[in-house]
């Protein structure tokens, strides 16, 4: 594959005669064939013969594999700091990384809404290719369906991924131990607030950009350096609070966080204060927590902060004890409280 930047810059939209997606683009006939050939294969396929089959045939290394799937639904499709395409690649790569796997291959299923501008689709497909190149993965198989106008939010993407596990650790809540340090790889809540900043009805001016990014490389670096990772979890929907509550309950352990150590950027904090939202419950798309033995924490942090300006990977707390299984948070004033899982979507307050 060539340089992804060259690829996108040198490739004008390949389907000129249809400015918008029509139902026929999913109908199995010539229009669909054209869409697959000129758009998806052009963007993804250096193995175009493979991709024309009903399934991709892959040579896999021996040993343990990780396999995951995720569906991506976001409005708007293009947002500050990312788009649904890059997010659908990074998200699935990150899910594989949370097992400590080296991501290898992805599938991409598209549900397109009739009327979607072809130019938007092309931008998103190019962004997926660039994202795949950045992560060192290949999109090897896919599917396209078109639904009636009004029945889809522009487009939905499902990606599945497989990766190879090259370590012998059991990275899961079951491996978490009392005394483990809890690390995060960067500031929290930026993706959710970037999306909210551009949504109709909740608009406020700002330059917040999503934190959408792949995290497989730093996880593989931790493993290569011999950091004994006990558990990893990416901080997507429900943010830090959901991820840590899930781990606390699965591990049957009590976690204690220090509020003053949790990194939240001032602009994210301000936006949350205005809307009455808790940044610890807001989604991220390039952030994860790592549970490591306390003696490994300094080394892990120096690896995670390599190449990052500001050193925003930090230790935010520790695994404190056996029961009750919950997440406690020592507030900036000193007393402790619960950090609960959100009940549903956070809704802006009245006043």
């Amino acid at each position, binding site marked *: 594959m060539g340089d992804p930047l060259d690829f996108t810059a040198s490739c004008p939209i390949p389907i000129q005669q249809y400015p918008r997606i029509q139902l026929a683009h999913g109908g199995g006939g010539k229009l669909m064939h054209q869409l697959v050939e000129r758009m998806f294969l052009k963007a993804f396929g250096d193995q175009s013969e493979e991709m024309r089959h009903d399934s991709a045939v892959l040579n896999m290394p021996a040993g343990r594999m990780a396999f995951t799937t995720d569906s991506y639904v976001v409005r708007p499709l293009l947002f500050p700091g990312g788009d649904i395409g890059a997010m659908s690649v990074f998200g699935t790569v990150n899910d594989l990384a949370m097992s400590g796997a080296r991501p290898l291959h992805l599938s991409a299923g598209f549900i397109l809404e009739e009327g979607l501008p072809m130019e938007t689709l092309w931008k998103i497909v190019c962004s997926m290719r660039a994202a795949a190149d950045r992560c060192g993965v290949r999109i090897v198989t896919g599917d396209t369906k078109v639904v009636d106008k009004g029945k889809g939010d522009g487009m939905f993407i499902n990606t599945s991924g497989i990766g190879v596990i090259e370590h012998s650790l059991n990275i899961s809540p079951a491996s978490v131990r009392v005394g483990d340090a809890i690390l995060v790889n960067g500031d929290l809540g930026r993706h959710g607030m970037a999306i909210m900043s551009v949504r109709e*009805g*909740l608009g406020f001016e700002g330059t917040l950009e999503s934190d959408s990014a792949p995290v497989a490389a730093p996880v593989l670096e931790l493993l290569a350096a011999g950091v004994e990772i006990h558990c990893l979890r990416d901080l997507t929907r429900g943010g830090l609070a959901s991820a840590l509550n899930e781990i606390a309950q699965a591990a049957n352990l009590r976690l204690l966080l220090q509020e003053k150590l949790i990194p939240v950027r*001032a602009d994210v*904090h*301000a936006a949350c*204060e205005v*809307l*009455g939202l808790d940044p610890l419950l807001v989604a991220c798309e390039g952030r994860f927590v790592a549970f490591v033995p306390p003696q490994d924490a300094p080394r892990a942090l120096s690896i995670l902060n390599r190449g990052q300006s500001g050193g925003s990977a930090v230790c935010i707390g520790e695994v404190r004890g056996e029961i*009750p299984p*919950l997440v406690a948070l020592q*507030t*900036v*004033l*000193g*007393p*402790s*409280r*619960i950090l*609960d899982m959100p*009940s*549903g979507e956070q*809704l*802006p*307050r*009245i*006043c």
Partner: protein
Amino acid sequence: MKYLDEYRDADAARQYAQEIARVTTQPWSIMEVCGGQTHSILKFGIDQLLPDCVNLIHGPGCPVCVTPLELIDQALEIAARPNVIFCSFGDMLRVPGSTADLLSIKAGGGDVRIVYSPLDAVRIAGENPVSEVVFFGVGFETTAPATAMAAYQASRKGLKNFSILVSHVLVPPAMEAILASPHCRVQGFLAAGHVCAVMGCAEYEPIVARHRVPIVVTGFEPLDILQGVLMCIAQLEQGRAEVENQYSRAVRPAGNQPAQDLIREVFTVVPRKWRGVGEIPQSGLGLSSAYAAFDAAKKFGLTDRVVLEPAECLSGLVLQGHIKPPECPAFGKRCTPEHPLGATMVSSEGACAAYYRYRVLTK
């Protein structure tokens, strides 16, 4: 973050707590009126910094919580109609009516939209001339000026497809009602700073004079609340009862005159039922006769109704400060944010929600 971190400083908070302990010679019960203050208290653990003999009682200042069931049911009925775009603050969407909530109306196909400002609803009405756009006007004196501005602008633009389901309520009559109760334990108030930023401080003078109770206009950050508590206890210990302003960086004694003028232009004071509490005289705002054309209840021909609250829900006692949420037998058992019996469990300013979210250890 500037203008925020200064008011969350741990050393200053400790110093305030020490000073409160130093001046307190006997037990005192102080009510913070606003649910936003309640959430700050529980979120930061402010009550844990205070001496045991200082009891913070949580007040009725949660607009979502006090919106009567009848009005929620009316909102649900309007929102479920075809050709209606129903606009609401996000906080109202999970509040249970008799049989449903706005989120389930939305799931059933109703066009329910979250707006951050009532003026967004006016804009939506302009953009959708063939739809009926209804704004659910909920809140205290804090949001009333924005609702009034929406009615004013809609009137100026001659919008015929815009109306408001009005449920605005007023703080001082609720404080009077609490003080008039034979079960009242409140010895001093922390008044809601943002309400006073609009209305000023003068309307609390008659309450202070009539009931000999200190009222300290207080902000929402930890140091605001600690300073408000200190000022209130100092008054109690010295036998004074005055209106004092802790939140002087936001509240001018006369309040915001243009906002008050707008409220007077658009609204008229009416009796209002408070959910779980009952009717409080002169405690609500309704549209004045000049703006009656924007009254959604009239426009949609909704009739007055009386709906019974679930008997198991004690949110009325919570809102009046008679009990704290964990004293309700249903709290955390039959009543949770996922299956609420009352609005105090789902509102971001509800006292039950605050205790459940920050305090419950037995879930």
